[in-house]
């Protein structure tokens, strides 16, 4: 059974995050590679050229944009990495866009009683959130669309890819909390702390309304302790189970008692503390935690701080997080060499830096290891890489002449992502997407006979005029605009080389490049025929015939490139 439909939004599954064995795994061999990624964390000092810069952009963002590439190529490798790590938080908020004021009979829209189209449904602080049971589903989709838009419009920055990492790490589901503000503020919490301090982020997430609902924190009282969050806090968010010697069941129970007493206002999406429900007796932890006792306190936050201090004393936290970061940004396969040369030193930096995230990423992204040639192109693109990254590479924004266009277009993108089995905001369960944890397939979980077809259908559709909310509001690749960005579109060989470097992670074989040129030249032997066609078009871009000649050929060639298996890799 395809995973998408059944798996998404099943909040009931969250208590059993590792119910993986129930699923049909494709019958494929595990990785056979014997070559390991070489190089350690020493700063990369090799050439800084298109191959390196596109690799950096592919891994820290979604797709490669020519403008971003040109920007980074004007820097040194160190400055380029600093640039992508120097992020700023978007100042926009999701807006009321889910009403179609042009069609009074549209059965799919909703009219807010008190808002103007284009106004955010999240009031400015300190005004309280106006919950509206009829609108929250629309607001959640408005939020999700806003999130996708942040990704589409991301500059040369790691921020959105990293926010998605934290979402995969601290996984929650919008489906579990029917409140637009709750979903938005959780997401923005991850974004605003994405490059900050991991320990602080963990505390903030612990007390975040969406997480308190998703992992039953609101039901966790001294009268009936609920272990759900206490377990995942250790198992999935900090310590992990990589080390067989880990926290015990008593530790789960003790941590649950530390975490009692937190409540939320469901409508306003705020957290409050109810001391009556908090267990303020002392909590005894196991030998794994050095038999720590957290003294009972009527102020649960004091106990929470003590709990996090205790957990973050353990080496496992930094190791576990560095492995997760590595699998998100580099490759899933961590062998003994990589563990010793990359993970352990990174974990040391993380721990000694007091869990500041930025230095870890800086060290990794500037390293010889990161830029190792065998590391390039081994990352199977996520659906977000396919759906959003492709728009970015072709400089497409989300076309929206009206607010309803905007809502529908974002819905289309959401639908494409759902079909490919990755809906941001609703990972399959609390452990996040399988591609980042499921041994032995990892990334390969993304591609099965269903999803690979949907990926290609989406990519093919981008070359047609049919992603449209009206005749003049279309999401469509404009091949001649893409070609015009290349260094020399008159020369088919140079142009194809440029395009391959932007769109594909490794050089193509001569045979494949010949095929591409053959498509561009429609089988003609002489390159000059393309040069003439392109010159004709550039000199008279309004001429239908000249446009048609170059557009047909570029469309065929680019569609072919995007449907190459190589395009599935980053």
């Amino acid at each position, binding site marked *: 059974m395809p995973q998408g*439909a059944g798996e998404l939004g099943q909040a009931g599954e969250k208590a059993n995050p590792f119910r993986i064995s129930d699923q049909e795994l494709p019958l494929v061999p595990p990785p056979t590679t014997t070559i390991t990624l070489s190089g350690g964390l020493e700063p990369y000092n090799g050439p800084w050229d298109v191959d390196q810069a596109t690799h950096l952009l592919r891994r820290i963002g979604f797709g490669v944009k020519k403008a971003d590439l040109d920007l980074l190529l004007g820097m040194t490798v160190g400055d380029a990495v600093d640039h992508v790590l120097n992020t700023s938080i978007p100042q926009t908020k999701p807006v009321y866009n889910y009403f179609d004021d042009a069609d009074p009979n549209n059965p799919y829209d909703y009219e807010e009683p008190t808002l103007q189209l284009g106004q955010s449904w999240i009031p400015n602080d300190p005004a309280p959130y106006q919950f509206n049971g009829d609108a929250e589903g629309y607001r959640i989709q408005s939020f999700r669309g806003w999130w996708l838009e942040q990704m589409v419009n991301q500059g040369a920055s790691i921020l959105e890819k990293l926010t998605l990492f934290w979402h995969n790490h601290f996984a929650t589901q919008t489906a579990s909390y029917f409140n637009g503000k709750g979903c938005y503020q959780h997401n923005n919490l991850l974004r605003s702390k994405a490059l900050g301090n991991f320990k602080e982020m963990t505390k903030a997430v612990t007390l975040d309304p969406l997480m308190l609902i998703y992992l039953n924190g609101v039901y966790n009282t001294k009268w009936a302790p609920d272990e759900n969050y206490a377990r995942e806090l250790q198992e999935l968010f900090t310590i992990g189970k990589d080390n067989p010697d880990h926290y015990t069941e008593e530790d789960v129970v003790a941590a649950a008692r530390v975490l009692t007493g937190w409540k939320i206002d469901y409508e306003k999406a705020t957290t409050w503390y109810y001391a009556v429900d908090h267990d303020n007796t002392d909590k005894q932890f196991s030998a794994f935690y050095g038999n720590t006792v957290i003294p009972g306190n009527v102020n649960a936050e004091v106990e929470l701080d003590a709990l996090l201090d205790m957990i973050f004393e353990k080496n496992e936290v930094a190791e576990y997080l560095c492995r997760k970061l590595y699998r998100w940004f580099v490759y899933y396969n961590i062998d003994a060499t990589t563990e010793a040369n990359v993970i352990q030193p990174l974990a040391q930096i993380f721990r000694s830096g007091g869990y500041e995230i930025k230095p870890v990423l800086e060290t990794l992204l500037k390293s010889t290891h990161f830029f190792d040639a*065998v590391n390039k192109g*081994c990352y199977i693109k996520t659906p977000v890489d396919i759906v959003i990254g492709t728009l970015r590479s072709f400089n497409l924004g989300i076309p929206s002449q009206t607010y309803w266009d905007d809502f529908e277009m974002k819905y289309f993108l959401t639908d494409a992502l759902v079909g490919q089995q990755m809906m941001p905001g609703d990972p399959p369960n609390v452990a996040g997407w399988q591609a980042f944890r499921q041994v032995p397939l990892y990334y390969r979980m993304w591609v*099965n006979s269903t999803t690979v077809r949907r990926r290609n259908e989406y990519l093919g559709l981008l070359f047609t*005029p049919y992603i449209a909310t009206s005749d003049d509001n279309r999401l469509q690749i404009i091949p001649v605009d893409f070609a015009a960005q290349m260094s020399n579109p008159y020369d088919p060989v140079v142009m194809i080389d440029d395009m391959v470097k932007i769109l594909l992670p490794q050089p193509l074989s001569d045979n494949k490049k010949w095929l591409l040129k053959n498509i561009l030249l429609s089988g003609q032997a002489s390159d000059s025929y393309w040069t003439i066609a392109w010159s004709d078009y550039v000199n008279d871009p309004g001429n239908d015939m000249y446009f048609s000649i170059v557009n047909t050929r570029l469309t065929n060639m680019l569609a072919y490139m995007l449907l190459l298996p190589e395009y599935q890799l980053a």
Partner: protein
Amino acid sequence: MKRRNFLRTAGATAALTPFLHSGFAINPLAKSSMFGSLGNAAAMSGKIMVFIELNGGNDGLNTLIPLDQYSKLSLHRSGVLIPENKVLPLNGYADTGLHPSMGAMQQLFNDGLMSIVHDVGYPQQDYSHFRSMDIWHSASASDQYLDTGWMGRTLQGEHPSFPTGYPNDDTKDPLAIQIGSSLPLAFMGSGYSMGMTLGNANDFDNVFVNDLVEPAPPTPYGDELEYIRLIQQQSQVYYEVIKEAAEAQPNNLSPMYPPLGENGLADQLRVVARLIGGEMQTPVYVVSIGGFDTHSEQVIEGSVEVEGQDSKGGDNHALLLRKLSEAIAAFQDDIERMGKADIVAGMTFSEFGRTIASNFSTGTDHGAAAPLFVFGKGVNPGIIGNNPDIPQDLAISGDVPMAYDFRQVYASVIQDWFGLTSMSSVLFNDFDILPIFRGTSAAKEDKRDLFGVSNYPNPVTSYTTILFSTFNNAHVVINLMDAQGRFILQIAEGNYNSGLHQVRFDRSNLPSGTYFYQVVQNGMGVTKKMLVF
């Protein structure tokens, strides 16, 4: 309340679909009535057509040589001239012959398996490869810029909901296959290509019989790439049917093919033959051979008969024509051995011909019309049209003018080969049919009108009256046949006295299309065409 529920579950997936129905034209054809008029006859009547694209613009005057113009040819194209005594003769056509390298096609012609159409082109020749190829693929007028192809429109008329719901029990095979990398414009329907490509002919067995994936480098990148290749290969919706066909016809049957790797066109046609032999119902195939843009070294070593490579490593014209000729002959032999000759035909086309005059590089430049070759058991053997008139004086390099519009050839394929009834929605106009195929509508209509047979009204909307006269008492049978001449029903049967008779025929639920009715008197028949709208 409903609305809230709607988007609440939309948090998952279910409600996303209505948006696809309301806003997004995922099935764009629903909007278009353009294709509605086709698709009445039984889809494509089980016939198969193989299109052979000669890329670059084939020099027609050195392919089909007008011997009655020889003195003028020798005047204008001395650089590429074929010695008169080397021209291969064609039975029944003393004034016309083939290039010396085309012995295999000469044999096909003399065996009655080939129809040649003189001087096919399009109006207002553009001389650009790209534009010309686009015109041939899209069947556009000279001032029309289409992003759909003529085969795509034809197929879309027959299969308007494709690709939704395909493959299915009725149509389990691909609608059109190109052997090669990219999908031709000819296959483009409105928004979708109606066809697929089958990649490299050399890899066919590896991919479809041996399940091998193209090897990738021994790196993590290569590992992941191989995995994706495998999944993509297996997820190809037509993977299984192609595999079945390839396994059902594991070998080519003809010994005439050149060794693998020597003749790329033959290698492509081998694949096509095996798919046909393996019972694939795909009606359209496209294969191609490049290198016909012979501006220089069309002739090498001073002799048109020398087959070899030019200084850029491309095949010269003689070698190209040998490959073309041998590939076609081997394919035809293969198809006959597979028992499929009745349903398979093939046709060459090239974007334009070449100049009458040769240039100073022993080549020829972009020209206009050129001959076109159709082969198979279903063709009317012979040559359609006359040798071109080569002028004594040439203004510049000189073009062979168009005698037949390429869309006439397409119309003949659509109507007489595939048995489809209306091509105006595909070709945007009505074009006169050429008698390329046996049983063509033109040939089948009996011009002798011994019995004064006619019907009115014609075209028929609800009923028609068939008129005929008898000379003396006669036993008369009137049969209705479809466009392929297959019996559909008997309209009347009985003994008639001499005189004029009327028989009323009610079309009732007869599908729209072209039909023939045959009035048989005492064993002598007269056949007439009837159009039913």
